């Protein structure tokens, strides 16, 4: 191994139970044209063949730019959208074929925390009602101790004053509202929490408080997180493994020190080199890869490798052959690139 960071420590989650097993998940949204007669003229390939495993107690970070399909992926895992094909196995059960009562039972175990704490809480419901709503929807999961005492307990767990149970969302700050959203997510004792950009609307000093809370809760309740964010520093901090998405596909998937220390996919390298580091002394010393242009239209992605139109390494093979996500020579993580190679100059590690 050329890089001392790769494969240094064994994966602490290697023997843990696989909570969520996602295989070749596909979701295309049809594009319709015409005023009177609607014809389907194409499809936005929002998620196009995504596979990963999530283990108990582990955090999988998903990074990518807007339009890469990370939020669609979250909706698919919540079954808020039905995938076109692929499979999701949740604790050994085929999650996608569940119907009726069985689906409702399984759904309890996968919860979501949304990005915007201002729009994801009903302004006309008190905090107590917001956090108790999951129990109204799942009456058989009602706590034996009584709903109200459980809600107070949850408020305490997320670091809010339990006496504020009758207050309304507008009486709380952004960080506190995000805590309310987290309490609601915890109410049904889930196994998996999908965090869709949970801290991107918060100020830096508050962001750190919420991230610490998420880490504490994971320790305490053995939660698995899927942590979706566009901020690579935040994902780095909280994740055990990281998936980099580009136009509906995973470009690179590996443990955090592999992705950040020895990225092998050109897109990951470009992403990392574009993140400004809060240290003026390294100004001008880091290699900057500035990508040309914008991501292509997901309704009409390029043939072969989807990144090839912006890639400086692209050759003929990238145009004709779609690269598979697999472990490539010289790396330990899986990379979907024909020319995957470590770049000595691009590493977020010192």
């Amino acid at each position, binding site marked *: 191994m050329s890089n001392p960071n790769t494969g240094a420590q064994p994966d602490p989650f290697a023997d843990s139970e696989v909570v969520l097993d996602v295989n070749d998940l596909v979701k295309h949204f049809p594009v319709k044209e015409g005023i009177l007669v609607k014809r389907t003229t194409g499809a936005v390939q929002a998620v196009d063949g995504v596979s990963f495993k999530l283990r108990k107690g582990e955090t999988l970070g998903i990074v990518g730019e807007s339009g890469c399909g990370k939020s669609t992926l979250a909706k698919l895992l919540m079954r808020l959208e039905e995938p076109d094909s692929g499979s999701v196995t949740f604790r050994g059960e085929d999650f996608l074929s569940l119907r009726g009562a069985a689906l409702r039972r399984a759904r309890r175990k996968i919860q979501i925390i949304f990005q915007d704490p201002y729009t994801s809480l009903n302004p006309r419901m008190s905090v107590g009602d917001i956090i108790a709503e999951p129990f109204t929807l799942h009456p058989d999961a009602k706590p034996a101790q009584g709903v109200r005492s459980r809600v107070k307990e949850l408020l305490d767990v997320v670091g809010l004053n339990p006496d504020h149970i009758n207050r309304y969302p507008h009486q709380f700050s952004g960080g506190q509202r995000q805590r309310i959203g987290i309490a609601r997510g915890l109410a049904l004792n889930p196994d998996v929490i999908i965090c869709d950009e949970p801290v991107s609307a918060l100020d830096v000093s508050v962001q750190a*408080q919420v991230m610490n809370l998420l880490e504490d809760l994971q320790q305490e309740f053995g939660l698995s997180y899927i942590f979706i964010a566009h901020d690579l520093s935040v994902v780095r*901090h909280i994740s055990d493994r990281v998936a980099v998405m580009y136009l509906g596909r995973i470009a690179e998937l590996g443990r*955090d020190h592999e992705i950040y220390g020895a990225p092998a996919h050109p897109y990951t390298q470009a992403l990392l080199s574009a993140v400004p580091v*809060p240290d003026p002394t390294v100004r001008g010393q880091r290699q900057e890869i500035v990508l040309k242009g914008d991501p292509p239209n997901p309704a009409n992605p390029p043939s072969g490798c989807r990144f090839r139109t912006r890639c400086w390494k692209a050759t003929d093979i990238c145009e004709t052959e779609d690269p598979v996500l697999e472990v490539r020579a010289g790396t330990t993580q899986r990379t979907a690139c024909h020319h995957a190679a470590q770049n000595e100059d691009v590493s*977020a590690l010192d």
Partner: protein
Amino acid sequence: MSQSPTTSPTQDYDPSAPLLEVKDLQVEFRTKAGVAQAINGMNFTLNAGETLAILGESGSGKSVTAQTIMGILDMPPGHIAGGEIRYRGQDLLSMKPERRRKLRGVSISMIFQDALSSLNPVLPVGWQIGEMFRVHHRMNRKQARQKAIELMKRVGIPAAEQRVGNYPHQFSGGMRQRIMIAMAIALDPDVLIADEPTTALDVTVQAQVMRLLKELQVENNMGLILITHDLGVVADVADKIAVMYAGRVMEHTDVFSIYSTPAHPYTKGLLESLPRIDAEGDRLSTVPGLPPTLTDMPPGCPFNPRCPYATDLCRTDRPELLPVADGHTSACHYREELYAGTITAREEVQS
């Protein structure tokens, strides 16, 4: 002022004065809940070719500062309670509105955060860029359109001739921000205020836009005021930095000192609470609590309820922005100790 509105406003400038100077600026918002002190004593100078970053969290007054300098603050409810803004020695606040309007875009220009809502959705972008020339330089449509194409090329929009007639929704976020930049630099301003120019953009596009801004700044020797909450962007491009909290400048110095030797507990707390991409951290240190409500400021130092170093002095006396080293000022009673690193947290602050 005896000048007629048609004469060029660039005549009676003091050549020795700094490009832009803000002195003890105070801005209030008169609301039903009381008077909110959005800016409470803001001071800085900006020279040509220099980049000043104004850093702060939401509600710290950084955008109000930009709007006040630009003269686009909503009044009422806004109210300038005191202070001066001098552009090349001339006080902008006492200037007649029509004279000030001639400076806007020509001498001081601004880029907004959200390009989609700042552009008019029903007019082609070329028309919107050309408007600068039609209004300020009395150009005809054809000339203005030609100028718009030139500018679109300059900010790196491909196929400018074909795209000059396109509408804002036909451009991507990064391209729209480039159009905003084209409008802002159209008349070669001396001062460019960029209010969170890359916050709405993806990281790879952010890198492109910041690089473009830097190039244009060097080309035109502009003074750039970069308003941001991103400590990474600041480290990348700024020369000087002013850290704002609750409407006041807490620390003002060059960009290297702020990261190496912060002399204010708020700056120190911010830097420590940042997740780093270049280092694996265990637990983030946090700044406990929340920023104060502007209508109900704590007595003494506005940061004292969240400060791990606060003493009784901080709860009664408001610290002034005073020097700790050459060109390094801090509004903290214990700035010397913080700068020297000889202070330890006094008590556990309850969040």
